C-alpha cells in the first residue's frame, strides 16, 4: 500500500498485520535473520546471534475439527510501544525516535537484562553472547537509507504486512474504520503494531453440517437458514453452503450455551443446543426433519 502524501513531520511508523492472510508470516522471520544475524548496523544495532530467540515469532491457531477448520498465524515482534515498559526501565539505553521507532542502544544497554525482561510481550530478545537486549528496529537503518518500507513487508504476499508512516490521528482513523486491534490493550502500552482479523486468534466459531434425506439417500442441505440464539435472543443468521456447512464466528470463548435453529423449506428443521468452551466447536452433522 502506498503512503498518504502528507509530509507532516509528525508522521510515525505503524505496522498493520492481517492475521487472516499471514500463512506466509514465516518469511518475515527469515528476512529478519538475513538482515540481523551476524550483521552489525553501525549506529543502530549489534549483530543478532544465530542462537538468540527470534526478533519475529509466529504462533499458529487452528480452530474447529476436521473437516470444518480454519488456521491463522499471528506474527509477533517489537510493538514499538508509545508507553513502553522497556523505556521506563531503560533510561538512556532505550530511546524513542520521532518517527515512533524504539531503539535500544547496543552499547549503553550492555548487561541490561532488565530491559528485555520489562517487555510484557516477550519481544525483546537477550543476546547471550554480547550480553545485550535486542529488538526488531523496524529496519530503521534501511528506512534512513531510503528503503520505502521494512523488508518483512516485501516478502509476505497479499499485503499481509503493511507499514505506514502517518500521523497518529490518521492511524486512529484506520483503526476505527478497519477494526484494527493491538495485543493486550489492557496493559496500555500503546503498541504501534496493529492487527486485522485478530478474531481468528481470540474468538471462536460454532460450526455444523446440515444434512437431509431424499428417500434413503443422505444429502447435504444447501440454502438452509440457521439462527444462533442465546437466551432467546437472536444473535446471528447464516445460510448453509453447497456442502451443508455453516459457521457462526466471532463468539467469545467460554461464553456459555447457545441454541442453533436450522430451517429449510424442503427438508424441515433441526435444533441443537451447545456449550461453547475455550475452543471453537464443530457440532458435526445435524439432520433436518
Amino acid at each position: 500500500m502506498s503512503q498518504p502524501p502528507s509530509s507532516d513531520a509528525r508522521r510515525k511508523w505503524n505496522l498493520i498485520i492481517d492475521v487472516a492472510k499471514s500463512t506466509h508470516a514465516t518469511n518475515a522471520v527469515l528476512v529478519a535473520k538475513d538482515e540481523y544475524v551476524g550483521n552489525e548496523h553501525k549506529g543502530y544495532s549489534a549483530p543478532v546471534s544465530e542462537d538468540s530467540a527470534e526478533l519475529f515469532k509466529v504462533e499458529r491457531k487452528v480452530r474447529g475439527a476436521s473437516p470444518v477448520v480454519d488456521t491463522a498465524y499471528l506474527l509477533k515482534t517489537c510493538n514499538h510501544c508509545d508507553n513502553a515498559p522497556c523505556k521506563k526501565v531503560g533510561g538512556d539505553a532505550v530511546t524513542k525516535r520521532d518517527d515512533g521507532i524504539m531503539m535500544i542502544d547496543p552499547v549503553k544497554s550492555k548487561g541490561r537484562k532488565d530491559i528485555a525482561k520489562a517487555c510484557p510481550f516477550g519481544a525483546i530478545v537477550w543476546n547471550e553472547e554480547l550480553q545485550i537486549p535486542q529488538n526488531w528496529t523496524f529496519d530503521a537503518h534501511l528506512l534512513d537509507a531510503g528503503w520505502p518500507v521494512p523488508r518483512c513487508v516485501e516478502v509476505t504476499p497479499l499485503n499481509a504486512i503493511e507499514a505506514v508512516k502517518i500521523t497518529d490521528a490518521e492511524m486512529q482513523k484506520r483503526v476505527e474504520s478497519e477494526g484494527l486491534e493491538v495485543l493486550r490493550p489492557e496493559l496500555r502500552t500503546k503498541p504501534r503494531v496493529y492487527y486485522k482479523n485478530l478474531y481468528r486468534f481470540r474468538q471462536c466459531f460454532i460450526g455444523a453440517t446440515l444434512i437431509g434425506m431424499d428417500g434413503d439417500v443422505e444429502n447435504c442441505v444447501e440454502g438452509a437458514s440457521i439462527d444462533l440464539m442465546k437466551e432467546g435472543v437472536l444473535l446471528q443468521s447464516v445460510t448453509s453452503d453447497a456442502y451443508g456447512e455453516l459457521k457462526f464466528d466471532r463468539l467469545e470463548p467460554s461464553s456459555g450455551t447457545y441454541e442453533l435453529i436450522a430451517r429449510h423449506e424442503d427438508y424441515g428443521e433441526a435444533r441443537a443446543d451447545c456449550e461453547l468452551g475455550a475452543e471453537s466447536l464443530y457440532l458435526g452433522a445435524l439432520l433436518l426433519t
Partner: protein
Amino acid sequence: MLKNAMFYATLKALPVMIGRAASNSAEFKEELARNDCVYQIKLKDNSAGRYYLFQNGTVKSKRGIHPNPDAAMVFKNLDIAGKMLSPSPDMLYRIHAAKNFLVELQGSDKIGNWVAKLVQRAQYEATGFRYGEEMPDGCKRTTMITNGGPVHVYVRDEKIVRVVPIKYAPDDAPGWTIKARGKTFEPTRRVMAAPHTLSVKSAIYSENRLLHPMKRVDYDPEGERNPQNRGISGYERISWDEAFDLIGKEILRQRREHGPGSIFVPHSSHHLWGNVGYYLSALQRFINLVGATRMAMNPDSWEGWYWGAQHHFGNSMKVGMPSSYGTLEDCLKEAEQVVFWSSDPESTNGAYAGLESTERRQWAKDLGIKFVHIDPHYNPTAQLFGGKWLPIKPTTDAALAIAIMNVWIAEDLYDKEYVATLTTGFDEWRAYVMGEEDGVPKTPEWQEAETGIPARDVRALARAWGKKKTYLACGAGGVGFGGANRGSNGQQFARCMVMLMAMQGWGKPGINFGNLTGGVPLDFQFYFPGYAEGGISGDLVNTGNAAHNYQKMPHVISMGVVKQVIPKQFIPEAILEGKAESYLWESTSQEAQFVPVQYPMPGYSPIRMIYRYGGSTFSTTSKSGRWVDAYRHESIECIVNQSIYMEGDAKFADIILPACTNFERWDIGEWSNAGGYGLHAQEMLNHRVFALQHKCIEPLGESKSDYQIFEGVLERLGLSQVFTEGCSELDWCKRVFDSSDLPSKISWNQFLKKGYYVLAPEKEELRTPVAMRWYAEGRRKDLPEPFPLPSQFADQYGYGLQTPSGKFEFIPTTLRRNEHAHPDRPAVNRYTPSWEGPRTTTLYDKYPLQMICTHSRYSFHTHVDNTAATDQISDHRAFINGHYYWLMRISEEDARARDIADRDLIKVYNDRGSVICAADVSSMLSPGSVKGYQSSAKFQLVTIGNEQVEIGGCLNILTPDQTQTVGTHSMAPNSTLVQIEKYAHAEELSNVTAA
C-alpha cells in the same frame, strides 16, 4: 601478406594485453604467476610462430619456433589462424576447426588449458572488468538466481550482508494486465521468492559447509580400503592436488582393470541454478569425458502422469502433464470453481516460482470463484484461502474420482457432445463406473469406505462441478507434478484426473487444468536456453541439447560411450544383489516406457567406483536405509563425494570434495526456465527474468566450483582442455548469453553491471491461446509446443491428440496393447486399493497410520535444509533437548489415543526403520492420516538401548521401495503405513543430543 601481418600483430599484442590485465587486476596478476612455462603458437609447417615465456608473473614473447615448449597451439595454415585468433571470433568456425583438427593442442594439457583461459580472461581484464552496482552504503549489489527466485546480493568486505528478492526498477519492462469480470489485475513489481530463497544466506554460511578436501582416515588405495568403515571412520584433510591425484589415478586404474561401466556417477537434482554449473551441464560433460555408468532417473515428480495419464491424451514430451498456456486469463474470466486436488501451491510453488502466484489465487477468491481442497492435510493453500476441505485418505483418490463420474453419468451432468465427438472408449468406461462390468456401481456410497469422504459430500461436489465451469488443480503447478501421483495408486489418480476433465469438456472456456500458478501471458518465443537443454554438456542424447542449444551455442559434442545405466530407485539392489531391472523415462512416445533396462548390461563391468555429486540421496529416494549397506559393500572400491555440505551421502565417502554454492562462482540463467521436458515453465512467473549469476564472494574455505573440480580431475586425465574448450565459467556465461536473444535487448557490459534483465510481456493481441481450446473447437493445434512429433498424428499433421485414435481415449489403446504383460495397469482404469494401505490388513493391523511424505515447504529438496535459519522454523522442526527434530503432523484423535501431546518426541516406525520426530498435533488431519515432509538433509542414525533410530528426520527410510505398478520405474512415498508411539527413551536420547 596482409594476413601474415595480422597474424604477427595479434601474436605480438598478447603480452601487452596480458600485462595490462595484470596491472588492472591483482587477482589476474596472481593467476599469471601460477605457472612458469613456454607456450608456442605457430603454423603446422613451422613457417611462422611466436612463443611466450611465462616467468615470475610476467610474460615475454619471441618470434620463431621454440625447440621444446610446454604446450602449443598449432594451426594448419595462416587463413585458419587468422579466423581463430580474431578478437571477435565466429564460434561455429572455432568449433569446426577444433573438430576437424585444423587446430591442434600439443604438449601439456594443464599448461594449454591455463594459457587459453588466461588469454580469454586478459581480454576483459585489460579493459577494466566491472560487475554489479555500487550502493550508497558501500555495499556492492550483485545478482543471483536460486530455485525460489532471482535475488540481489549485497556484499561488503567479501561478506554477504543481505539477500533481497529483486525489486524491479522503473525502467524495467512493465508487467501484463488481465481484465476479468470488470476488474483489472496487474502483478506485483518485485520477485515473490520462496522461503528457501529468503534463508539462503544461512545455507551459504552454514556450519555444515565442507571447506577442505578430505580423505577417510582408513582409506588407503595402495593398501586396505576398509569399505566396511564408511559412515563410521573420521576424515583427514588433504590438499586439492592430493585429492585430484588420488581420483585421477583411481579412474585410470578402474578403466584398466575393470573396463567401461565400472565408474558410476549418481547425482541429485536441482540443488543450484544456472546453465553452466548445472548437473545437466558441467556434470554431464564430465560424465561423458570420464566414461561412466549413468543413473537412469525415474520421473519422480510426474509418476502417475507419465506412466498413466499420458496414455489417454498424449503429451509424452511433457512427461504426461497437460499444458497450461493461456489458462490464467481464462480461469479468471470464465471459471466458477477451482478444485485443488492434491495441490498445495503455497507450499510447493510450482517448483521454482516462489510465491509469484499467491496473489492470483486471491484475485480468484475476490472474484467469487469457489475453492475446494481434496487433500489428507488442511494444507497451507487451504489455510490461506479457505473453501471446502475434503480430508481424503491417502492412496484412495481414484475411488473418489470414479464416484464423481458415477454421479455425473447417473444425473446427466457431463458434456455428452464432447464425449461423443472428441473421445473414444466411453461406453466401456461407463460400464465399469456404473457397475455393468463387475456388478458394483461405483457410487458415492461405494467410495465412502475407501476414502473416508461422506457420500453426501461427493454428491454435493459432483453436482457443483457438473454445473459450474471448473478448473481442476493437481500438484504443484496445477497440471500434475507432485502430490497423489507419487503414491501406490498414482497412476490411477492421474488417469482419473484427465478423464474427469474430458467428461466436462476439457478446453472449453473456464474448463481446464490449473491452480492459477501457470498460464501467465508471457512472451515465450524470446529464446533463452533452459536447464534441461544441456548447457555446456555437449550431450545430444541425455539432455535436450539437440533441439536448440547445440545450434545456437556452437560447442564440441561430448558422447557417453557407456550404455549401461542403473535405475535410480534400485541402485542399492544393483550393488548389494549385483543386478537390477526397471523401465526407462523416455519421453518421445508412450511406447518408449515399455522398454526394460537391465543392470548389469552385457559386456560392461559392474560398478566398482562411485563418484557422487550433489545433495543427499537418503532423503530423496525411497526406503533409503538400503543405501547404508550399499555404500559399505566390498565391491565398491572407491567412493568420491562432491557436494557442498557434510551431510547425507558425504559421510559415506572415501574422498570428499568441497563444492561451493553458486553464490561463489559465475553462472547465467533464466528464472524457472527448465526447457526440454519442462518447456516454458516460466509461465508460472509474473515476469521473465534473466540474470548473470555474479560471483558474489570468493569460495569459502578451500571449496571450489563444481566446474573447477571437474577440471582438476580431468587435468589428471589430460582432458582439461577438452572439458573447458579454453573457457572459464565466465567465458561460458558469455557464450550462453550470445546464444540467446538477450544481446538484442541488453549489451554484455550492461548485463554484467546490472545483473538482470526483465522481458516485456507478450502483446495482448499475440498472447498464446488457451491450452486444449483448439481441441475442444476441433481446430488445428495452435500452441507453441513442438509436439506431438510429426509421426504421431492419427490424422493430418497438427490435428488431434497424441493417441492412436487422435482423440482422448477413456480406454487407452497404448495400454490395451500392453496390458497382457502388465495386468496391474489395465486399460480400464479400475480402482484397485493400495498395496500398502487399509486393505493390506496384516500390515495395517501393525501399522494403522497412512503417512504422506511430501515435498518440504522450507527447503528445495535437501538444499537449504540443515541450516540454522531453516532448523529454527517452528513449522519445520522443533528444538527439544538440544536437537532440532523433524515434525510429524498428526490428528488430535490419533495423538490422544497414544497419549501424545503437541511437540512430544514420538517414534514413527514400520518394518523399514524408526525415525524420532516431534509431534505437531492439530485438527488439520483426519484420524488415520499423518504427514511429514521428505527431504530432510540430515541423516543421523543413533543407537538407544538396543534400538537403532534415525533422529535427523529422514522419513524416506520408512517409505516403500516398491514400484507403483509392474513394468514401471515409479516411486510411491505417499503410500506408507507406519505406527507412532510416544518415544519411551526421550531421556536417554537427550543425553546423546545434548552431548
